[in-house]
C-alpha cells in the first residue's frame, strides 16, 4: 500500500472509501481517486502493455497523455473502451482491464513480440502492406495483434447535449499565468471564462512545491481572488480541444462539448514535461517527475520507495525534495548538466544538507528491470566512471515542451529559442494572447506577471484588431530544458514515442530512407500519431532528426496540429444529432392511410400507401389504375413554391428559364426549364401568371431552397427590383388527377370548370370548400388534372374534403412511386434522374422549351454553341416484354459493340400498358438503330426496342379532356 498520510490540498475524500476490480483483482480507493491513482496507491505498477511490442508499462505522464494507462471499463451494463485511467475518477464496482493484452496485463501472451523488434523496422506497415495479394492476410493479423479497446456495438444510443457558451475573454489553463490573466482581464472589465482540464485551479504550482507542506501563498491568494471575482466563471474538467476561426473553441468536458465563442483568447496551457530517451526508459517505475508530484500532492500516493531523479533543471531538484518530504528515499539526483543555475542551487544545497547524493555530468546508460519487469536499477556514467543505483522508481526531469497545438490552429507561430531550448511564441493572430511556459516563463513570479500582461492586453483590446507582442523570455532566466536528453545504447530500446514503440533507430532509419522532415517522419513512422498525439515525443524526435541531418532545431518546425488537439469521444462529437426534416401539412393524413415513407430531399413523402393483402407493386399499380381510370389525389406540397412580384418579374423569369414568360397571359401557365451557364438542365416547373406583376411558380422538391437563394442573388446581381417570396413551406399543394377530377372538384367550388372557362394550362384563384385556393389545370400525370395550392393551415381540411367528395368516384391517394410511373408513361423526364450533371437541354429533346430568340437567359450562349454540334447523347424511350426473368434496372448500362453506349435512367412495368417501359440516355447513333442492348445486374444482355414517347396517350387527349368526354 503506497497511500500517504493526509496532505494539504489532496483531491481524495478519505471519508468515502470504494473498491473496484482491475484485471480481476479487487483494488481499494477513495472517492476522488482516478483509476491510475487508486492503482498506484494499491501498489499496482504495471497498468498496460505497449501498442506494438506488448512491453509492460506503468504510469509515465499521469496527465492524460500516454497510451499506457488506457482501460476497458465495464460499468452499468456498458463496456467503455479506451478510458484514460490517469484522469478518470474511478467509481465503486467498476470492472477494469487493460486494453491491448492477450490473457491479461500480467501475463500477456503476446509479450514475445518484444523479441521480434528488430524484424519490425520503421515503416514496416507500409512495406508489409505493399503487395495487394497479401494485404488481407496482414490486415487481419495486425488487427488481431495491435489495437486499443473493444467497441461495444450493442451500447445504447446516448444523446450528448452540446452547448454554446460566450465570453469576452477565454483563458485556457488555470495555472498561475492563466489565473493571473483571468483576474487581470476581469479587472479590465471583461467577462472571463477560465477553463482547465484538471479538477482544480492552480496548475503545477499546487504540486511542484519543493518540499513545502503548502502551496505558495501567492498561488493560494490568486485562486481566492479569481473565485471572488464575479466577472470570472471557471469551468474545470474541460479540455480546450481545438481553435477555429473567429475564436471558436470547443471545450470537451466529461459529458459534452461546450462550443465557446470568445472575443479574445489567452493561451495559458503550460507545457508537457518531456521524458529522457535512454535504454529502458519505458520500464514501469520510470516516470516524469511531474507525474510523481501529482500523485503525491493530489492523491497522497507515494509512487515508489527509493528513487533516483534524472535531472536537467531546478524542477527535478524540487521534485527530489517533494519525495524526501513524504518519506521516499532519494538515492541520488543525477544531473545531466555540468553546472547549475541559481534557481537549482537553492534546492541543491537543501538536498545536500539532507544527505542526498548529487552528481553532475551524468549520462544514463540503461534502466534495468527486476521483478514484474519494473525498474530495479539504473546504470549510468558519471565523471568517476560507470555506476549503478538500486531503485524502484526513476523520475525524469529534463525539460518541457509548451503546448502549442491551439496556438498553431489559431494562426500563431513559434520559433525555437536556443537560450530556452524550447519553442516559444513568435507571432500571435489578432485577439489571441499567450503567457506562461508558452513564452518561456517558468518561475512563479514570471508566470504571474506574464499572465497579468496578457490578461490586461486581452481586455483592453476587445473588439479591436490590436495584438500584443509575443512574449519574451525573461533575460538571464535559468533554462529548464536540456538541449538533447537522448542517449543511444547499442542494444536499442530507447523509446522516443511510447504510444507507437518508436526508438532512436526508427527515426534514424526513417531519415536514411528519405523521410527526413518532421511531416514526412510523422507519416512514415507514425511518430506522434498515437493517443498522446506527440505531446511526449515530437520534440525529442525533432531533436534526433535535426542531429541526424546535422542541423540546428531553428531550421526545423513542429508538425501541423489539427483539431481535435485531444481525443474526443465520438458521442461528444455527434451530440444530440440535429437532422432537420421537413413535412407537409398533410403528413398525419398520410400516416393514417398507411403511407410507406421515403425521403425526398429533406422531406419525407409517401412512397405508396400500404394495403392489406397487397404487395408493394400491387399497391402502386392500384394507385396508377385509380388515376388512369377514375381519380387520384397526391400531396405535392414539397414542390418549391415562389412568387415573383413587380414590373420586372416577367423579364426576370425570362432570364432564369429557357422559355419566355414576359408574354404569358394573366391566368395562364407555362412549362419552365432551367439550365445552368453550360446549358445543363438543372430544374423545371410550372410558371403561372396571376396578375400583371405577379407570377407564381414551382421548382423541384430537392432544389427549392438552393434555387430560392440563387434567385435572390441573381436579382441583386442583375439589379432587377423583383419581390421574391418563398411559399414552399407556407402552402400545401395537391394534384387532383384523373377522368373524374373535374366532377370531384366541381362539387366543392363555384368556379366554372368548363373547358371554355378553365382551359388546359389555365390558372385561377377561387374558393374550394370555402378556402381561398390557387388552381392550375396542368397535365402533371397525363390526365385531366388540377393542381390546388392553399395556405398550409387549411391543407388538412381541404385534403379531407376532396377525398370525401371523390369517395363515390373511387378516389385514391397516390404516392411518389405511382406518380413516377404515371409520368414515365407520359415520357416526362425527372430532372436529376433522367438527367445528370452534364445533360444539356438539347439532349433531352427539350428544344421546344428553349426560346433562343430572347435577348438573354442563363445558358443561352452555351446552348447556341451546342446546337452547332452533334448530340453526345439523347434521351429515348424503350420497351420490353414484362415477363422476362432478367429485368433491367435504373443505371444498367447500354452496350454497343463492347463499349458503353448509355444507361437506363427510368424503368418500370406500366400497369396501364402491361409491359416494361423506360427512358435511357444513349448514343444517338445507337438509338437510331432502334434496338438497345441492356446489360442487367447478372451480366446478361437483353434487347429492348426503342419507341417514341409518350408511351401513353401520345396525342395528349386525356389531359385536354373536355367536360362530358
Amino acid at each position: 500500500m503506497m497511500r500517504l498520510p493526509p496532505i494539504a490540498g489532496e483531491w481524495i475524500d478519505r471519508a468515502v472509501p470504494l473498491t473496484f476490480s482491475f484485471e480481476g483483482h479487487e483494488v481499494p480507493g477513495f472517492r476522488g481517486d482516478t483509476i491510475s491513482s487508486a492503482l498506484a496507491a494499491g501498489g499496482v505498477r504495471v497498468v498496460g502493455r505497449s501498442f506494438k511490442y506488448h512491453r509492460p508499462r506503468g504510469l509515465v505522464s499521469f496527465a492524460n497523455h500516454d497510451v499506457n494507462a488506457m482501460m476497458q471499463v465495464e460499468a452499468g451494463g456498458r463496456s467503455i473502451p479506451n478510458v484514460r485511467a490517469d484522469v478518470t475518477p474511478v467509481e465503486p464496482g467498476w470492472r477494469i482491464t487493460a486494453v491491448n493484452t492477450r490473457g491479461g496485463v500480467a501475463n500477456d501472451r503476446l509479450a514475445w513480440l518484444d523479441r521480434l523488434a528488430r524484424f519490425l523496422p520503421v515503416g514496416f506497415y507500409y512495406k508489409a502492406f505493399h503487395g495487394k495479394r497479401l494485404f488481407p492476410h496482414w490486415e487481419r493479423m495486425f488487427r488481431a495483434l495491435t489495437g486499443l479497446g473493444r467497441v461495444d456495438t450493442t451500447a445504447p444510443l446516448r444523446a450528448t447535449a452540446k452547448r454554446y457558451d460566450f465570453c469576452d475573454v477565454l483563458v485556457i489553463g488555470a495555472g498561475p499565468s492563466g489565473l493571473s490573466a483571468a483576474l487581470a482581464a476581469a479587472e479590465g472589465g471583461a467577462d472571463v471564462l477560465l477553463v482547465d482540464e484538471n479538477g482544480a485551479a492552480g496548475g503545477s504550482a499546487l504540486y511542484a512545491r519543493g518540499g513545502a507542506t503548502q502551496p505558495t501563498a501567492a498561488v493560494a491568494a490568486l485562486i481566492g481572488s479569481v473565485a471572488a471575482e464575479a466577472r470570472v466563471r471557471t469551468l474545470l474538467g474541460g479540455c480546450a480541444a481545438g481553435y477555429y476561426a473567429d475564436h471558436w473553441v470547443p471545450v470537451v468536458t466529461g459529458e459534452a462539448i461546450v462550443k465557446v465563442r470568445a472575443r479574445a483568447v489567452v493561451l495559458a496551457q503550460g507545457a508537457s514535461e518531456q521524458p529522457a530517451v535512454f535504454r529502458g526508459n519505458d520500464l514501469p517505475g520510470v516516470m516524469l517527475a511531474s507525474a510523481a508530484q501529482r500523485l503525491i500532492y493530489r492523491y497522497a500516493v507515494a509512487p515508489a520507495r527509493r528513487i533516483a531523479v534524472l535531472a536537467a533543471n531546478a524542477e527535478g531538484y524540487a521534485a527530489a525534495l517533494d519525495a524526501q518530504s513524504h518519506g521516499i528515499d532519494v538515492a541520488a539526483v543525477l544531473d545531466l548538466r555540468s553546472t547549475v543555475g541559481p534557481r537549482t542551487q537553492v534546492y541543491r544545497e537543501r538536498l545536500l544538507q539532507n544527505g542526498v547524493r548529487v552528481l553532475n555530468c551524468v549520462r544514463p546508460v540503461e534502466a534495468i528491470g527486476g521483478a514484474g519487469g519494473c525498474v530495479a536499477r539504473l546504470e549510468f556514467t558519471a565523471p568517476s566512471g560507470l555506476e549503478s543505483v538500486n531503485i524502484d522508481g526513476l523520475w525524469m526531469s529534463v525539460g518541457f515542451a509548451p503546448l502549442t497545438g491551439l496556438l498553431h490552429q489559431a494562426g500563431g507561430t513559434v520559433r525555437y529559442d536556443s537560450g530556452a531550448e524550447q519553442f516559444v511564441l513568435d507571432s500571435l493572430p489578432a485577439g489571441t494572447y499567450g503567457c506562461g511556459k508558452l513564452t518561456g516563463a517558468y518561475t512563479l513570479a514570471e508566470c504571474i506577471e506574464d499572465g497579468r500582461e496578457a490578461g490586461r492586453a486581452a481586455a483592453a483590446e476587445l473588439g479591436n484588431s490590436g495584438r500584443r507582442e509575443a512574449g519574451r523570455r525573461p533575460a538571464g532566466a535559468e533554462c529548464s530544458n536540456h538541449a538533447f536528453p537522448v542517449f543511444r545504447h547499442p542494444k536499442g530500446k530507447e523509446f522516443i514515442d511510447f504510444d507507437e514503440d518508436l526508438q532512436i533507430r526508427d527515426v534514424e532509419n526513417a531519415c536514411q530512407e528519405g523521410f527526413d522532415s518532421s511531416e514526412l517522419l510523422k507519416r512514415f513512422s507514425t511518430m506522434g500519431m498515437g493517443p498522446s498525439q506527440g505531446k511526449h515525443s515530437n520534440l525529442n524526435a525533432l531533436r534526433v532528426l535535426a542531429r541526424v541531418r546535422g542541423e540546428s532545431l531553428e531550421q526545423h518546425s513542429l508538425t501541423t496540429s489539427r483539431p481535435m488537439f485531444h481525443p474526443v469521444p465520438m458521442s461528444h462529437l455527434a451530440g444530440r444529432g440535429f437532422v432537420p426534416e421537413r413535412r407537409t401539412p398533410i403528413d398525419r393524413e398520410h400516416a393514417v392511410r398507411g403511407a410507406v415513407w421515403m425521403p425526398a430531399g429533406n422531406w419525407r413523402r409517401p412512397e405508396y400507401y400500404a394495403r392489406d393483402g397487397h404487395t408493394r407493386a400491387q399497391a402502386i399499380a392500384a394507385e396508377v389504375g385509380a388515376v388512369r381510370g377514375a381519380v387520384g389525389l397526391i400531396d405535392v406540397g414539397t414542390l418549391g413554391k415562389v412568387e415573383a412580384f413587380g414590373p420586372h418579374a416577367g423579364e426576370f423569369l425570362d432570364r432564369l428559364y429557357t422559355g419566355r414568360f414576359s408574354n404569358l397571359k394573366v391566368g395562364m401557365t407555362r412549362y419552365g426549364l432551367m439550365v445552368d451557364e453550360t446549358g445543363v438542365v438543372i430544374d423545371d416547373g410550372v410558371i403561372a401568371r396571376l396578375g400583371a406583376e405577379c407570377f407564381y411558380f414551382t421548382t423541384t422538391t430537392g432544389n427549392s431552397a438552393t434555387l430560392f437563394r440563387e434567385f435572390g442573388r441573381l436579382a441583386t446581381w442583375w439589379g432587377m427590383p423583383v419581390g421574391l417570396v418563398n411559399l414552399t413551406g407556407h402552402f400545401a399543394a395537391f394534384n387532383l388527377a384523373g377522368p373524374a377530377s373535374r366532377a370531384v372538384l366541381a362539387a366543392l367550388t363555384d368556379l366554372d370548370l368548363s373547358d371554355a372557362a378553365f382551359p388546359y394550362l389555365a390558372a385561377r384563384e377561387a374558393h374550394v370548400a370555402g378556402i381561398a385556393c390557387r388552381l392550375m389545370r396542368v397535365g402533371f400525370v397525363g390526365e385531366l388534372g388540377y393542381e390546388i395550392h392553399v395556405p398550409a393551415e387549411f391543407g388538412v381540411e381541404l385534403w379531407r374534403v376532396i377525398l370525401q367528395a371523390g369517395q363515390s368516384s373511387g378516389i385514391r391517394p397516390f404516392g411518389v412511386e405511382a406518380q413516377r410511373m404515371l409520368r414515365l408513361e407520359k415520357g416526362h423526364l425527372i430532372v436529376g434522374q433522367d438527367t445528370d450533371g452534364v445533360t444539356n437541354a438539347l439532349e433531352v429533346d427539350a428544344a421546344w422549351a428553349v426560346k433562343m430568340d430572347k435577348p438573354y437567359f442563363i445558358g443561352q450562349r452555351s446552348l447556341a454553341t451546342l446546337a452547332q454540334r452533334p448530340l453526345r447523347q439523347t434521351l429515348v424511350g424503350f420497351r420490353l416484354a414484362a415477363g422476362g426473368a432478367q429485368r433491367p434496372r435504373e443505371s444498367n448500362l447500354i452496350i454497343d459493340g463492347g463499349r458503353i453506349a448509355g444507361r437506363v435512367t427510368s424503368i418500370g412495368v406500366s400497369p396501364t400498358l402491361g409491359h416494361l417501359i423506360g427512358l435511357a440516355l444513349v448514343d444517338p447513333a445507337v438509338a437510331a438503330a432502334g434496338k438497345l442492348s441492356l446489360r442487367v445486374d447478372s451480366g446478361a444482355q437483353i434487347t429492348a426496342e426503342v419507341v417514341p414517347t409518350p408511351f401513353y396517350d401520345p396525342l395528349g387527349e386525356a389531359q385536354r379532356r373536355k367536360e362530358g368526354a
Partner: protein
Amino acid sequence: MSVVSVPARPLRRSPIDGGHGVAADLSFVREDMARPLPLDRTVVSDAAVVLKEMSWRRRFGLKGPAAESWLATHHFHVPSKANSWVVADGILVARLATSEFLVEALEAGQARVAVAARELYAHDRPLAVYPVPRQDLVVELQGPALNDLLRQTCSVDFAPPRGLRASDAGPLVLTSMIGVAVIAIPRELSGRRELTLWVDPSYAHYFWTTLLAVAVDLGGGVLLDQPHGAYGDHT
C-alpha cells in the same frame, strides 16, 4: 358524387397539430385554429423552461417598395430600422429587412390584424406591396432554464446584457436554431425573459419535438395557454 359536408368556416390547423406524438388524439381551438393537446409533456408555468405554441395568433407579412407606407396608412407602428421590432396596441410589427415586415397580433389586436390581412390580399392593394403568407410555427420560450435551452440549440448569445430586455421595442435576430432558420425576438415582460420564435411550418414537427426534448431534459415541457375546459375533440 358523395354528399360533401363543407364546413361553413374552415378550421385552421396548427403546424404541429397531430404531428408530434401527442398522448391523445385531441386538440383545442383558438382563433379558428385546431391545436394539439400534449397531455404527457404539460407542465406548470414555473417549470424550468416552458414552450408555448402560439401559432394561432393572427399575422401577415408583406414586402415591397410601398410596404412601409401601406403599414403607416393602416396605422401600424413601424420600426425605423431593419432587424428590429415594436409592440403597440397589442400588435407586433417586426422589420425583417429594409422593406419586409411581419405583423402579428399578440393577445389583443386579433381582429384588427385579420382585417388588415384581408385588405392586403385584396386585388386593389398597391402594386408595390407584396403579401407574404406567414403560416409559421410560433413558439414562446420562458423559464429560468431558458438560457440553458438556448445554449444547447443556438449559436447566438441571447443572455443579458447582449440579449435585449425590453417589452415594447428592440432588435430581432435572424439566425438558425437546431439547423432551422428562425426569426427570434427576445423580450422581457414583468421581469421575466421570454423568446419568441417564428419557424417555417414544414420544419414544425422536427423543430417542436426536438426543442421539447431538450426542454424536458432540462425539467421543462409544454405550457398550455388556455384552460383545460376549453379543449375538445376537433379531429
